[in-house]
C-alpha cells in the first residue's frame, strides 16, 4: 500500500486495526493475516515494514542509490539513523545495514539509501546489478543514535569518508530543510572527485547557502586526516558538534584526536564495519558469547552445543547430529563452521543448528 499522505496513513492504521482484530486472526489461523495479504500485494503486511524500489541510480561506478517506497508500517527515520535491509539473493535472505541518506523532512515519504559496492559483497553487488523499480525488499524500522540533538548548536562539523557520507548527508539535508541558521562545515574524504557520491548536490547546497563550508579532501593529494589538516580546513573545530562516519582508520584518527583534546562529548560517530565480520578460515579461537544468559567462553573448536553445555547452559536439543533442528538458535553475529560439511556462514541474525556448528572467531548467540 503506497502511503504518502497522512490521510492514507490514517486509513491504513484503521485497516490494520480490522486486520489484526480477534475475528480476522481467528479466521486466518494458523498462518496469520500477513500470509494472505502478501498474496494480493507483496508490500502488504500488518506488522512488517516492506518497501518497493521506486528508483535506482548509479552515482559512481562503485555505488548504487535506491529510493524506496515503504508500506504504511514505516515509522519514519531521524537524520543519521540506519535501517536493516533484507533482500533475497539466490534464494537466501540477506540482511545488511544501510544509513538513510534522505532528509528527515522529506515530504514524499520515500527512503533513500546508497550502497558502496564491495567486489566480494553479496548484497551490494546484487543491488548494483539487479535492483530495478518494483523490487520488494524488507526493512527494519530506523535504528541508531547517530542523530541530531533537540537543540542543534550553532556550529556543526561533519566528517565523512567514502560511503560514510550517507548518514552525514542525511544530517546535512535535514539541516538544510530546517533552514538551520548556524554554520556547517563538511569535510569529506574520497579517493577522487568521481568517487564522491553526492558531489553535485553538495556543490549546489554550498552555492545556495553561504553558511555551509564544503571541503573535499583526497588523501593521495592532501594526505590522510591529521590535526594539521583539520586546523587548515576547519580551525574552529573545537566549538562544533562533530558527526563522523567513514572507514575505521578515519574514525579512529578522529576519535583519538577528540579524546586527546577532551572533546569526547562533542563527537558522535557511526560505525558500520563491525556489523559485518569476515569469517577467518575456520579458526575456532575467539569469544563465544551466550547473550541472553550473560555467559562468555573461549571458542575451543567443539560444537556450540557442547560448549554451551560445558558452560552450564541447557539449550534445547534433540538428535545431536544435525537432523532434527531442535537446537536451532539465533546467532546475532560472527561466523560459524558446519562440522559436517565445512561450510562457513557469517550472516548476521541467521538461525543455526548448535549441535553441528563450531565457532570461527567471535560469535554471539541469543541463548
Amino acid at each position: 500500500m503506497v502511503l504518502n499522505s497522512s490521510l492514507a496513513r490514517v486509513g491504513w492504521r484503521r485497516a490494520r486495526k480490522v486486520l489484526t482484530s480477534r475475528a480476522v486472526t481467528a479466521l486466518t489461523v494458523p498462518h496469520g493475516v500477513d500470509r494472505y495479504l502478501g498474496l494480493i500485494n507483496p508490500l502488504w503486511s500488518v506488522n512488517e515494514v516492506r518497501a518497493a524500489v521506486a528508483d535506482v541510480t548509479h552515482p559512481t561506478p562503485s555505488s548504487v542509490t535506491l529510493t524506496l517506497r515503504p508500506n504504511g508500517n514505516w515509522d519514519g527515520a531521524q537524520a543519521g539513523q540506519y535501517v536493516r535491509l533484507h533482500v533475497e539473493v539466490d534464494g537466501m535472505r540477506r540482511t545488511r545495514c544501510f544509513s538513510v541518506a534522505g532528509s528527515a523532512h522529506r515530504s514524499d515519504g520515500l527512503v533513500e539509501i546508497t550502497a558502496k559496492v564491495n567486489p566480494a559483497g553479496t548484497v551490494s553487488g546484487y543491488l548494483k546489478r539487479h535492483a530495478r523499480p518494483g523490487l520488494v525488499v524488507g526493512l527494519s524500522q530506523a535504528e541508531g543514535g547517530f542523530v541530531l540533538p533537540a537543540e542543534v548548536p550553532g556550529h556543526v562539523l561533519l566528517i565523512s569518508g567514502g560511503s560514510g557520507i550517507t548518514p552525514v548527508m542525511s544530517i546535512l539535508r535535514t539541516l538544510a530543510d530546517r533552514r538551520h541558521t548556524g554554520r556547517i562545515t563538511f569535510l569529506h574524504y574520497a579517493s577522487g572527485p568521481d568517487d564522491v557520491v553526492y558531489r553535485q548536490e553538495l556543490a549546489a547546497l554550498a552555492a545556495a547557502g553561504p553558511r555551509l563550508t564544503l571541503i573535499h579532501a583526497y588523501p593521495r593529494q592532501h594526505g590522510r586526516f591529521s590535526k594539521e589538516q583539520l586546523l587548515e580546513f576547519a580551525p574552529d573545530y573545537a566549538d562544533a558538534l562533530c558527526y563522523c562516519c567513514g572507514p575505521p582508520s578515519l574514525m579512529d584518527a578522529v576519535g583519538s584526536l577528540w579524546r586527546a583534546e577532551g572533546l569526547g562529548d562533542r563527537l558522535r560517530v557511526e560505525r558500520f564495519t563491525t556489523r559485518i565480520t569476515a569469517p577467518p578460515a575456520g579458526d575456532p579461537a575467539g569469544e563465544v558469547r551466550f547473550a541472553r544468559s550473560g555467559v562468555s567462553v573461549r571458542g575451543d573448536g567443539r560444537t556450540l552445543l557442547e560448549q554451551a553445555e560445558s558452560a552450564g547452559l541447557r539449550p534445547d536439543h534433540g538428535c545431536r547430529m544435525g537432523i532434527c533442528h531442535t537446537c536451532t538458535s539465533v546467532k546475532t553475529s560472527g561466523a560459524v563452521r558446519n562440522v559436517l560439511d565445512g561450510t562457513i556462514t557469517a550472516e548476521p541474525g541467521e538461525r543455526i543448528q548448535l549441535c553441528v556448528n563450531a565457532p570461527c572467531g567471535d560469535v554471539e548467540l541469543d541463548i
Partner: protein
Amino acid sequence: MATRARIPQLTPEQFDELGRELDALRKELADDLGHDDAAYIRRVVTLQQRFEFAGRALLWAGWFPPAWLAGTAALSISKILDNMEIGHNVMHGQYDWMGDPSLNSKMFEWDTVCPAEQWRHTHNYVHHTFTNILGKDRDIGYGLLRMVDNQRWRPYYLGNPVYAFVLMVAFEWGVMLHDLEFDRILSGRRKWSDTKGLRRRMWEKGGKQALKDYVLFPLLSGPGAMATLTGNAVANLVRNLWAFSIIFCGHFPDGVADFTEEECADETRGQWYYRQMLGSANIDGGKLFHVVAGNLSFQIEHHLFPDIPARRYQQISGRVREISERYGLTYTTGPLGKQVGKVWRKIFRLALPPRGRTPFGTARRDKLRPVPDARRVAA
C-alpha cells in the same frame, strides 16, 4: 551394531564407506540449493493459498451441490499441501537456509490440530533419530497398534484393524494426542499430571482449528452454514485419510526392517544411514503424486536427508537405489495401492498371535528373499 541374520551384514569398513558416500551426496545437494528451491516452495505456498481461497469461496455457495463438491475438493487439496509438501517439509528445517521467517522450521505453524512445536519433538527428534527402533521410535504403532512382529502380542491387539481405522479417520487428532503417550499413562509409567502443559497447548491449538473450521466459517456462510460445516469436516477427513495412507506406507509395508535398542547402541554415521535406508519404504508414482504426497513417497531419501528440500529427493532416488543395491540393502518401493494393501494386510495379520508359537517374527524372517553377499559387492 549387531545385525540380525535377515538383514545384510556390512563390515565396519563398509559402514564407514556407506557413511562417506551418503555424506558426500548430502553435501552435493546442500551446496546446490538456491533460487530454484526457494521459488519452488513459494510457488507451492501460493498454490495452497489459492486452493484455500477458492475452497472457502466456493463453500459459500455450498447449497449448490457442484459448488460444495468443488469447494470441498479445493479445501482438501489446500490442507493436504499445507500439511505435507509445506508443513512437514518446512518444519524439518528444509528451508531454514533461506532465512525467511515464514518458512522457518521453528516458526512455522500448520493447518492441523497438533501444535507444531509438539510435532517437531515427536517427529523430527524422536522418530527421525530413532527410526524403527522398537521401544524408542514411538511412531511404531503410536502406542496404539501392533505394527512389527517384535511387538509382543496381547489380546488387546485383536482390535488392531479397528484401532487403525479409527486412527486413520481421526488422524490429525491422533497425531495431536500421540505425545500424551496414553499407553504409558495407563501402565503407570507416566503421570497424568505431567501432561498438563501439553494438554493446555493441545487445547489451545485444537480449539483454534476447530473454531475456525466448525464455527466461524460456517457462521460467516449464514444460511449456508451447514454446507460449509460439512465441507470443512469432509476436507479435514480427506486430508486425514490421505496423510495416514502415505505415512503408513513409509515404514510399515513388508520388507521394511525394525531394530532393537541393543542393535543400535553406539551407532556410527554409516550405521545410522543404514538403519534409515532399511527402515523406510518408497511409493512409486508420477510427479503430481509426489507433490501431493509431500514427497514422502521418497521416504528412504527423506530419512537419509530429512532437512534437504524434498523436491530434491526424486533427483537423487536413482543414485540412492544404486547405492542400496551395491551394498545389498533392500530398497523397498511399490505403487500406492499395493503398498497400502501390504500395510493393511500387516495390520490384520499382527492382530493375531504369532502362528505356531514360534519365536516372534521368525515366520516372517524365513520368508525374506536372500540378498547378495554384501562383502563381495562392495569389495
